[in-house]
């Protein structure tokens, strides 16, 4: 009868556990600040005038009072662009993971639920897909359909569907085979009722933990693909695209490369900390 009432660990308890992890709380605060910056900068900055307009007179100015992070080779204020770019990374990270989670969980839960040869076929296919390096898939998809934010999201999302499908199936199966599920089934609950009342709520924590860590992975990957020119296209101030734009000037104007990179790192670090805190709070067994 171990952990039969994980579901009953109510929200306040999870929150109390989460609060114990100082790093996670700091991460959450930093993340909220980044979200605020992303929202505020959309309101404050004008996309045309502040973000993309070329100002030849201000080319490559070092960081100063007027331009905190300096200006780039087209005279655009790097600080404004970094702030404005926050929305892209956050959006890409979250949306692509939602795509993975939704499709992956559906496929995985479906396979576990249906069973039989259909399950076997689905899982074999997933095993094969897992053996294809995700990075190749993403590059090929983005290249074929064109470098744009929606395509990048879709590619990143689809490339991790097999991982989520496998894990979703595994957690549905473990939960399903637990004694308390047996018990409620023995009491005459229908299969569907069992799935929605007992199986899904209990399978959700591992999926949530995996999803959080995947968001940070997606943000890093997205920046990487943009850096290669196979992600968010210039002149959008996505951080990876900014790194790509600034690369020719790295030797003399390193600040062009430092600030967007730091922005990625801080965002990802905050999300990773939140992920650690969530993992500890949702599953105390894993807490070390």
């Amino acid at each position: 009868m171990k952990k039969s009432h994980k579901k009953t660990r109510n929200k306040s308890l999870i929150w109390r556990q989460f609060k114990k992890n100082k790093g996670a709380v700091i991460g959450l605060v930093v993340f909220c600040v980044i979200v605020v910056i992303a929202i505020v900068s959309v309101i404050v900055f004008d996309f045309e005038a502040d973000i993309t307009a070329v100002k030849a007179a201000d080319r490559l100015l070092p960081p100063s009072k007027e331009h905190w992070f300096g200006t780039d080779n087209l005279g655009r204020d790097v600080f404004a662009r970094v702030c404005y770019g926050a929305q892209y990374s956050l959006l890409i990270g979250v949306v692509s993971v939602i795509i993975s989670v939704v499709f992956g969980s559906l496929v995985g839960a479906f396979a576990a639920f249906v069973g039989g040869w259909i399950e076997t076929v689905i899982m074999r296919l997933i095993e094969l897909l897992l053996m294809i390096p995700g990075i190749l898939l993403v590059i090929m998809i983005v290249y074929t359909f064109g470098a744009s934010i929606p395509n990048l999201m879709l590619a990143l999302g689809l490339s991790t569907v097999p991982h989520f499908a496998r894990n979703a199936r595994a957690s549905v199966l473990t939960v399903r085979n637990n004694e308390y599920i047996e018990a409620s089934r023995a009491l005459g609950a229908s299969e569907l009722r069992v799935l929605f009342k007992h199986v899904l709520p209990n399978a959700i924590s591992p999926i949530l933990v995996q999803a959080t860590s995947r968001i940070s992975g997606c943000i890093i990957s997205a920046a990487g693909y943009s850096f290669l020119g196979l992600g968010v296209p210039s002149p959008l101030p996505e951080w990876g695209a900014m790194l790509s734009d600034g690369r020719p000037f790295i030797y003399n104007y390193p600040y062009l490369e430092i600030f967007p990179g730091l922005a990625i790192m801080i965002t990802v670090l905050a999300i990773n900390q939140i992920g650690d805190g969530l993992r500890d709070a949702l599953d105390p067994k894993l807490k070390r």
Partner: protein
Amino acid sequence: MLKYIFKRILILIPLIFLVSFIVFALMDNAPGDPVRTLVGENMTEEQIEQKREELGFNDPLLVRYGRYMKGIFRGDFGKSIYGNKDVLKEYLFRLPYTVKLALLSIFFTLIISIPTGIIAAVKQNTWIDAIFSAGAIMGLSIPGFWLGLMLVLIFSVKLGWFPVYGADEGLKSYILPAITLGVANASLLTRMTRSSLLDTIRQDYLKTVRAKGLSERKTILNHAFRNALIPIATIAGSQFSGLLSGSIIVENVFSWPGIGTLTVTAIRTHDITLATGCAVLTTMFTAVTLLIVDVLYAFIDPRIKAQYTGK
């Protein structure tokens, strides 16, 4: 054991079909016209059309795919459109650069992460643990390619210790890319080592071992770590195979003459045959590496060995 390996090799066949079909179908819809690239600017539309027919580009997708697959099973991956080079030869020429880099990088990863992971676990909840764990989560959060840029900026441009790009200066050229690729892996593996060692440290059999009178050091190394090694090896193995395909972006940063750069160049130049070949070969290569790693587990865990041998 042999039977198991054979089974695993058999899985490669559907894998090749699947990956090549995905790539083939995707590239077929990709922008850019390889024939136009091939024949150059000065041809008339009719001439292009004729060349297209000649190369079989007008056949239906499945026909072309079938032709391609037939070639693959004879070991013929076609010729690159741009430069007309044998794809397999070109790939095999670049492969050693990537493999050597991956080996060095996983070596860095292991020598850093295993000791730090063990120390962090043994000194759980002390300041040493806190520092190592904080370092690990930082390392996980740094984008690899950006770290590469920063390392180049500091150690190559400012200090001049290492070359800025390329693989021409022997071991010296390998150091920065290997570290760049290793940081995230080492961070992850440190966390894994720590948590899996903490798991085994609490196992009952360690009580038996301690009650025998074994020293704490030997208890941790000979018994706890030996058992923790199984999940650690799993992660390290998949990290190594990941390095073979996953170094694409970092290779780009260092202009590394490996398969990642080759793949990206192929895609950028709309070279369908080369890109498809790269994808298929990289997938196969990764799968084989994973297989080798899986077989090696048997030497760590007798239970897995028994499974393989069907005992």
